């Protein structure tokens, strides 16, 4: 984190509005040692990203993405190697679309971090049901700060109706699951009650709910609740919201999406608009939300998503399925561009999830039945 000296320099720098950015940097570079200069640039970028998350008018996505990319190439050793091996010179990248996307599985094999892992204040793991190794997303203090800002602002923008009402989490608390990004997220959002493997408490709380509540849980947690109380109904007070994330694989029985949403509506006496979906992954600091059973997922203004045709490596033709590639300015400490194995189809400025590109068939010895979702 920046020290007082750096903060002072940053304040001065912001005041020098008449001078061009390069002029300013050259001037400062001459006056500061390289390490301090880099730290100062880091700080300026961090501040700019924070400001942009708060206000889309405070910056330009492309410019910020390129600056963050430069930082990550410089500081993230594994990513730098990858970019070089891809034949890309970072200084020649002029659009966020050209930023090389790291495959999400790289988080399993490499420490994709811009700072020493010892300095990480949090490490978030994926928890695939059959995956040999979990992804690890290291975050230093600054990264956590930006993450928290992103998830809070993203939730507020996507689900304004949740503002001011109690948030109940159907998952372990951060104390019980310190490496769960989802638990961290719900704690940051101010979850007031946690329900995990104690469905009777949840059933009781739901029955007693008199004020609107936002119930946030994983798909398999909802199914486990319903299976434990096959005949129960919990009519939620008007204005209540149900937010579902993740899948079912390996946890409970599989439930088709239409059946699942029908269950949500029926059990909670809630309309389709009150049913929301969240899509995220431990490798990413930002989330995508949808509304209703068929609503497309949309990301916040500090993200961009492309749908890639895996055969050509280019954007999938309109209306055809492809793999999601995310660009997330809130991914401060790792990589901002991530290539997922999640299949989706574009709709407007959002996308419809189709699941994960499966590889469940026998291929010699390489069977890998991965979890549909990459996050607990």
């Amino acid at each position, binding site marked *: 984190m920046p020290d007082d000296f750096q903060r002072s320099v940053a304040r001065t720098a912001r005041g020098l509005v008449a001078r061009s950015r390069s002029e300013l940097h050259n001037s400062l570079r001459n006056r500061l040692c390289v390490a301090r200069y880099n730290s100062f640039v880091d700080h300026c970028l961090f501040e700019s990203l924070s400001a942009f998350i708060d206000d889309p008018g405070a910056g330009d996505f492309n410019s910020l993405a390129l600056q963050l990319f430069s930082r990550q190439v410089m500081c993230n050793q*594994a990513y730098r*190697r*990858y970019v070089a*091996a*891809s034949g890309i010179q970072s200084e020649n990248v002029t659009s966020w679309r050209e930023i090389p996307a*790291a*495959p999400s*599985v*790289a988080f399993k*094999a*490499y420490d994709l971090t811009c700072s020493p892992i010892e300095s990480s204040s949090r490490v978030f793991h994926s928890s695939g049901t059959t995956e040999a190794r979990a992804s690890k997303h290291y975050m230093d203090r600054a990264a956590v700060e930006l993450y928290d800002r992103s998830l809070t602002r993203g939730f507020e923008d996507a689900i304004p109706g949740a503002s001011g009402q109690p948030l109940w989490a159907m998952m372990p608390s951060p104390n019980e699951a310190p490496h769960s990004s989802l638990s961290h997220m719900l704690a940051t959002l101010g979850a007031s009650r946690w329900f995990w493997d104690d469905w009777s408490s949840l059933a009781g709380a739901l029955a007693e709910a008199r004020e609107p509540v936002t119930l946030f849980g994983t798909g398999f947690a909802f199914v486990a609740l319903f299976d434990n109380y096959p005949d129960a109904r919990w009519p939620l007070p008007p204005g209540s919201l149900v937010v579902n994330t993740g899948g079912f694989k390996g946890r409970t029985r599989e439930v088709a999406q239409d059946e699942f949403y029908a269950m949500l509506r029926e059990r909670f006496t809630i309309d389709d608009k009150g049913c929301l979906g969240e899509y995220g992954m431990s490798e990413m600091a930002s989330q995508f939300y949808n509304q209703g059973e068929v609503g497309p997922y949309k990301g916040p203004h500090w993200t961009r998503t492309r749908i890639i*045709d*895996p*055969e050509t*490596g280019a954007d999938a033709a309109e209306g055809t*399925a*492809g*793999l999601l590639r995310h660009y997330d300015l809130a991914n401060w400490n790792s990589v901002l561009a991530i*290539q997922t*194995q999640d*299949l989706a189809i574009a709709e407007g400025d959002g996308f419809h999830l189709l699941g994960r*590109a*499966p*590889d469940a*068939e*026998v*291929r*010699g*010895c*390489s*069977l*890998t*039945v991965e979890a549909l979702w990459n996050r607990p």
Partner: protein
Amino acid sequence: MEPSVIDNAAAGLRARRRDLAAVYGLMGLQMRAIDAIDEVAALWRDPGYAGRGAAARDSGAFPIEMVDVSLQGLLPSLTAQKLRALVREESPDLARAPEVIGHVLASNTPLLGWTTTLRALLVGSASLVKLPSSAEAAWLRLLARSLNEVAPEIAGLIDMLSWTGGNARLDRTLACSTDKLVVYGSDTTLEAYASFCDPDKLVGYGHMASLGVVLRGAERGRAARGFARDILMYDQGGCLSPHTIFVEGRFDDACDFCDALGKSLGASDMPLVRDLRTARRAARVREAREMARFEEGARLWEDERLRWTVACIHSGGFRFSPTYGVVYVHPFVRDELELLLGSACGKLQGAGVASGRESDMNEVGKLLAKMGVSYTCCPGAMQSPPLQWRENGKEVLCSLIN
């Protein structure tokens, strides 16, 4: 499909097998099967055989030009003389042979149905084959047709059905209605069958992978051409497809071999597996390439069409590939080969070995056998094992005896 369909098919096979055993006796039935197989092999060796024409028209996902490479290894092993030698060598107790053997096939290679049903015939057993889908039936149907031409009564000992895997009710019925069950598939599939099948009744062939070895002194261009064929065959989906090729020497030597391998792969006229261009395949290939780019010092050779990928890596030993034409090349020194294969010990099936000297070949062959490799051949012949191959080290015929 109702379980009764499976029950009825098994009952029909059992009755036909009993009838034949009553007519010929068990040994006579075995001899009749040997003669029939010999005749079928002769038919398929004839380039003008009508069955080959049928294969050219309807061969499912695997074109006849590709399967021919495997047939070149299989057919010579199907002569009456060689089959009798196999029977003499293993001397299976025919009195304890199952009347009906159930077979569960994976879809990754086309001739699996041939070898497993022919082995069953050699112990005088009928075969009820579960195919992963009807589209996979093409090559087994061709075998049944050929058998029917030369010995209809023997052809009547093979029946095939298809249903989607993981249907416990149907899978259990197959296990219950047959006397022995040979299962090819994922470890998950094997576990599923093991859960309702007596261990003595189940002969399982789970996940296995293969490797290549290029020893110092080997003719590298020839080795590269052979391995290119081994990799492209069945889109690298067979258990005998090489995942990692070890090149004796330094990293530069391995890179030189990669150059040659890349050229051979690019120049290969091996036809593609049909329906190859799937999103899943492309996604896996791209992911493997991106991951290789992350690796320190790794070098890549790749084609734009995603048909093949060669990644030269420094370390880590044997590596499982996602298949789909992705192969790793790893330098080694002789003393370290055992260590480099250690993590895959027990999962290794076959090895293609290129060597300039027989003594080197023997030395490495012994080591590979120690690591569990059950089939060693020269590059280019990995997908062409004979019927007599002791897969996973199991006896070819006696493993089927109760």
